[in-house]
């Protein structure tokens, strides 16, 4: 099941993660992990250095042995070098998170300042924690300083907050010399976020409702809802997919005004295209014009693999010569 899910995630659909993306991420983590291991071995934390000149023995002490062999500063790196190592670690581990943000956001939802924030934040948090260490007094001072500064910023997307928290988490882990925890957080974050984005979890309300809340074998086309029934289309044979898709209330539906020179022939052409290219569509109104001409209005949700722009292009191409123009109607115009 999981294999099937991942195959689907990698290969198909408009939300493709892409084989190259996965390969690059894997390669990046391998290289970053190697760099971090080397850095922590060459510049060991003072408290972690093996005692004396005797090399540690035994399989369980393999890493300590490596450190002992590689350590440039066997007695432990000075505080500033140690802080630099942790900050470099935080930086390396947060980059895939920033990349995931860029990969999963549309141009509209993308906020470039958030990318820079996500990259900088763990470095700063690491430095703060290196300074505070185990000092209760410094911790209280930090709390006082933070309380004195008012942070207020509206995020473009509520989901962006998760990136901020993920970034802080990596900073915390790096700051307490737990780079392994930071690595685990970074990898888990990236994997879960990419999978959630790929599957668009929760977007298909009816499907999710049917799968999770309805008894097995129940009629999936008609989940119980307090929203009432879907109004029948005034024309055409639009496929209704449940109460949540009431054409007036469903924000995922776009209103298309289609100008045709012949209402009957135009409607036929429009509905042939919509039956093929739209996941949900309903005819909402017809405005007769001069002679046989007029305007057909449809509420449309295109198939994800097609997209609204392509639906409009296909209407013009396949609906020729009767379809003259297609226009997306905004809310103001509808009112």
């Amino acid at each position, binding site marked *: 099941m999981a294999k099937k899910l991942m195959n689907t995630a990698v290969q198909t659909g408009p939300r493709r993660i892409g084989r190259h993306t996965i390969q690059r991420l894997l390669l990046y983590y391998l290289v970053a992990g190697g760099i971090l291991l080397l850095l922590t071995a060459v510049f060991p934390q003072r408290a972690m250095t093996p005692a004396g000149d005797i090399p540690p023995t035994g399989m369980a002490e393999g890493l300590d042995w490596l450190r002992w062999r590689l350590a440039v500063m066997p007695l432990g790196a000075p505080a500033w070098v140690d802080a630099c190592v942790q900050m470099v670690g935080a930086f390396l581990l947060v980059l895939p998170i920033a990349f995931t943000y860029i990969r999963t956001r549309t141009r509209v939802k993308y906020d470039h300042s958030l990318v820079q924030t996500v990259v900088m934040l763990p470095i700063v948090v690491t430095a703060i924690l290196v300074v505070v260490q185990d000092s209760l007094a410094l911790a209280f001072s930090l709390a006082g300083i933070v309380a004195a500064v008012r942070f207020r910023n509206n995020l473009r997307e509520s989901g962006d907050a998760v990136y901020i928290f993920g970034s802080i988490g990596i900073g915390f882990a790096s700051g307490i010399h737990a780079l392994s925890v930071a690595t685990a957080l970074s990898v888990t974050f990236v994997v879960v976020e990419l999978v959630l984005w790929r599957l668009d979890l929760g977007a298909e309300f009816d499907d999710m409702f049917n799968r999770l809340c309805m008894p097995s074998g129940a009629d999936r086309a008609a989940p119980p809802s307090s929203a009432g029934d879907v109004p029948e289309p005034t024309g055409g044979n639009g496929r209704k997919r449940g109460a949540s898709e009431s054409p007036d209330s469903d924000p995922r539906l776009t209103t298309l*005004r289609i*100008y045709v020179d012949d209402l009957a022939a135009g409607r036929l052409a429009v509905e042939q295209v919509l039956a093929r290219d739209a996941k949900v569509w309903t005819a909402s109104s017809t405005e007769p014009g001069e002679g046989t*001409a007029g305007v057909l209005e449809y509420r449309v949700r295109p198939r994800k693999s097609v997209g609204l722009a392509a639906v*409009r292009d296909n209407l013009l*191409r396949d609906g*020729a010569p009767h379809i*003259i*123009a297609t*226009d997306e109607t905004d809310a103001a115009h509808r009112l």
Partner: protein
Amino acid sequence: MTTPAPAITGDDHVLGQAGARVTLMEYGDFECPSCGATHPILREVRRAFGPNLRFIFRHYPLRDNHPHAEMAAQAAEAAAAQGKFWEMHDRLYEHQDALDQRGLTRHARKIGVDVAKFETDLAARTYATRVERDVESGRASGVRGTPSLFINGVIYRGPRDRASLVAALANAAMAPAVP
């Protein structure tokens, strides 16, 4: 008194086929803020009609009000000479705050024209006559300001929002042909 409809000539800048159901002609000024605001709307309108619309652009620089408009129009013609009129047209409308000499050269470089030839054409005012011809045709057709739009040769005086323009163009496209 009726003004003559602007006749479409061979050296007009045209997007779309001659057999399109409706023709929209714009007299525009690259430094005019209203033209700049109308530019993305016209792009949407072109998208709404696809092959059913033919779009024609003509220059009408308002030299008294817009000091860079004339040179911008000539720059568009210099780019047109190298086959990049629409790229320059879009770029000029999208960068109305950079229409001085340096800005025009930068735009030319960005769209990939031969900058040396472009600068020579601008310095020699090679296309001043071409721009003036557009202006004269506009004056003859009753253009007094920018942007001035003509739908199938008839000046359009309605609102310039997308929905109104699409409706007006669709009505013109669906109107029975005048014998």
